[in-house]
């Protein structure tokens, strides 16, 4: 909402109030006190809203990833310095006071958002990422995956599909939005190392791109085919192309505008220095 209507609205209401109360013969001083309270209240609301708005809209990092990859645990580890036991998130976790350890204290705190990973709740991330990108406030997306499950085809597929949808959003801005694929749980025996994970994801993203290009198109408002995927608000499972147009045969993450980095780490054993380093690089830019 823009500023003018807000100021207009209270003014209108207070005048109404004046008319109605004076009609009942209320003494003038009560009226003036009432008016004073009302205007003070509106001023308070406006100021409160402004400060809060700035805080919530500040530079941010967004944590995303499939369910069960360790997003909320990473969030508490980053924010509170300790990992907590977690259950599937139903709502996002948000803090406006996130500080990176190696940055000087004078830097403003960041906003850190942990989004739910369940398929039904991903819409929240997509819209949040789009608004943040439009406002140019997003420093990076931390895409957390469970590296120990990436040797299983269906889990890899799930991780790649979600990543594909996110990449389609990050590709929309010039230069893209940086993404860190945080290969969590790397301390486990079955964990796929970062380098291998990168190739696995590339292969899977390629397959997804191929099959989405062939899939039945989405229903649109007028019932016609929607070929323009740029202003299409439905990203999930859409047939939008990722990477170079007309590129055939392979998919490389380097070809994207989005800079994708894959780094090993582990929330459980506290090895997240590499990820923090990545965030700090993005934060100073």
């Amino acid at each position, binding site marked *: 909402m823009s500023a003018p209507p807000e100021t207009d609205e209270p003014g209108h209401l207070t005048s109404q109030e004046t008319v109605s109360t004076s009609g009942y013969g209320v003494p003038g001083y009560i009226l003036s006190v009432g008016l004073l309270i009302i205007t003070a209240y509106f001023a308070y609301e406006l100021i409160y809203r402004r400060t809060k708005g700035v805080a919530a809209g500040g530079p941010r990092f967004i944590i995303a990833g499939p369910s069960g990859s360790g997003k909320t645990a990473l969030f508490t580890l980053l924010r509170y310095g300790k990992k907590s036991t977690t259950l599937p998130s139903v*709502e996002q976790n948000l803090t406006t006071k996130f500080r990176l*350890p190696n940055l000087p204290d004078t830097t403003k705190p960041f906003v850190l958002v*942990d989004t739910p990973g369940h398929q*039904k709740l991903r819409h929240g991330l997509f819209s949040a990422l789009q608004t943040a990108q439009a406002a140019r406030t997003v420093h990076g997306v931390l895409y957390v995956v469970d590296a120990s499950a990436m040797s299983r085809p269906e889990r890899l597929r799930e991780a790649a599909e979600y990543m594909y949808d996110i990449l389609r959003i990050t590709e929309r801005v010039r230069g893209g939005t940086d993404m860190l694929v945080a290969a969590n749980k790397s301390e486990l025996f079955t964990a796929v190392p970062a380098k291998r994970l990168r190739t696995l994801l590339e292969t899977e993203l390629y397959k997804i791109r191929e099959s989405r290009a062939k899939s039945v198109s989405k229903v649109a408002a007028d019932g016609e085919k929607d070929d323009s995927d740029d202003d299409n608000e439905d990203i999930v499972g859409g047939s939008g192309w990722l990477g170079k147009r007309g590129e055939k045969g392979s998919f490389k993450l380097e070809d994207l505008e989005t800079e994708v980095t894959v780094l090993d780490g582990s929330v459980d054993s506290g090895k997240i220095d590499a990820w923090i380093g990545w965030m700090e690089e993005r934060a100073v830019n």
Partner: protein
Amino acid sequence: MIDYFTVFTTGGIVLWQKCYQPVSAAIVDSLVSDIFIEDRGRSGEQSSLTKNRYTVKWTTANDFGIIVVAVYQSLLQISFIDELLASVKKLFTTLYGDELKDKDPEQLPVCRFDDYFAVRYAELEKLSEGRKVGKPSVPSNGVPGEKISSDDGAEDTLEAPSRVTSSDSIGDAATAASASAKKLPLGKRGGRRGGRGGAKARVGRESPFASSGDEVPAKKSGKKLRKWDIDGSARDISDDEGPLDFSTADANGNVAVDEDDNDNPLLEDENFENWGAKTKSGEFILKDLSSEISSILATPDASGTTEGTGGGGAALASGFGFFRNIIGSKVLKEQDLDKALAGMKDHLMKKNVAPEVAQHMCDVVNKSLVGTKTGNWTSIEKAVRAAMEDALRRILTPSTSVDLLHEIQRVKSGNPPRPYVISVVGVNGVGKSTNLSKIAFWLLQNNMKLLIAACDTFRSGAVEQLRVHARNLKKLTEREGGEIELFEKGYGKDAANIARDAINYGREHAFDVVLIDTAGRRHNDTRLMSSLEKFAKYANPDKIVMVGEALVGTDSVQQARNFNAAFGPTRNLDFFLISKCDTVGDMIGSMVNMTYSTGIPVLFVGTGQMYTDLRTLSVPWAVNMLMG
């Protein structure tokens, strides 16, 4: 009796948990997503869900953003479980309410709830036993019961400053020395005073401090063992207590000192403040624990939940309810929502959503909004609308993505290779054959080799209809290299057998996909529906698609339910195809009805008369249509 009890935030952070029997994390996770994300287990008033021989009961406190969950074996009947959940919620919100209200706290709320829970649990258990047997429990039980509470009372007072060595020792000494409860307060006061000194000197005395921290859980678990004789849990408690213990928190704080000197004073202030706040509310902590619990539980709900939520502005604005509605940041109560929700229900019903479903959606919205605060400049109507959009989106979004082409490829290249089998079912005249041929057209465009099995052996003309489709499709896609064939055995034969034969034929001749058309049947005709179970067993399709028409209204709920149940206990529908969407405009409520009643997603929508008029569902599109 209870296997697992937990209190966690909607963000998924576990605040407190108690594990009596190890329950696999995967089970708890799946239960939580089933209940709170996929919205299952809505059988009437009782909020419970049974799955994998576990039953889950829960209660939520929206204004605090917490969820209380109890998991127990389905075989057991725990009569007092609802009471336990309610009282835990009440206790938790009263004890830690201030910390929980802070949406962006400096530290995670530390909830040492073990003793409260144990006492309350024992109380309720005893009560229910008394109810069953008809007489109060044996007196010998009563004595240790007393002892527990006094002990716990002592421990509880020390709870906040328990990180400090001196407080612990004094408190302990006091407990040991005083058999009477009268002396306890003295001990406590001493403990607290000692605590203050200790807190200040904390950083300097790192090592003695750490050792004291270790002692605390050890002592606790010892107590547990002695009192309630729950061996398995004692270990778990100490494990869980570990990260939440103040001593470890301090250890963290000390680590932070090494990294960043400036952080520490801040952290310490925070601790100190928390601790001070607890001392202020010390009157009831001084009492013994069980009486504290009963006093908390005795306070009426209203004071706990509705007041004190607005902060500074609330008192000022209480007289300006009208303005509140426009300005927003109003704490929502049930009666505020009633009007907006009634309007919303009408609106949904106009969109062809069944009354039962519309009512449920409104209940969901109601539950999610009561106790929350509207955003600034947000009216109740706006808030309800946003919540409703969210609820609709949640219902319509599938919980697993379906990529048919990918799955067909996988089955084709599997070992041994076999055709992928898709079968359509539905009520008469909804467009099973038409939409089957639409799917066929799409698959043909992707160079698949198709076999259509005509298993509608009942309605005259059904086989001929498919033959015409097959001929048309062949002509349309000849140039692109699609292959299509019709498998038919005439009329009057058993559909399940034909389906099986068709699949065998398909396997022998290396078809990629077998599409099975079935006879339409009325969903409440048990004779016709019962043959579906045999069909599912014989044909065992990879995907069973139910075609439902957008035109049908309230009945779609029952249709979806009956068809979903018709394939036997182990098989369900895989997805819906909603046909004739072009004929209803924005009244696409049937979609919501069907997904609501079964939890099965809509994958395709039919939007016209051409082979190309098949679309996948776009959830934002559907939500816009429904809310517009």
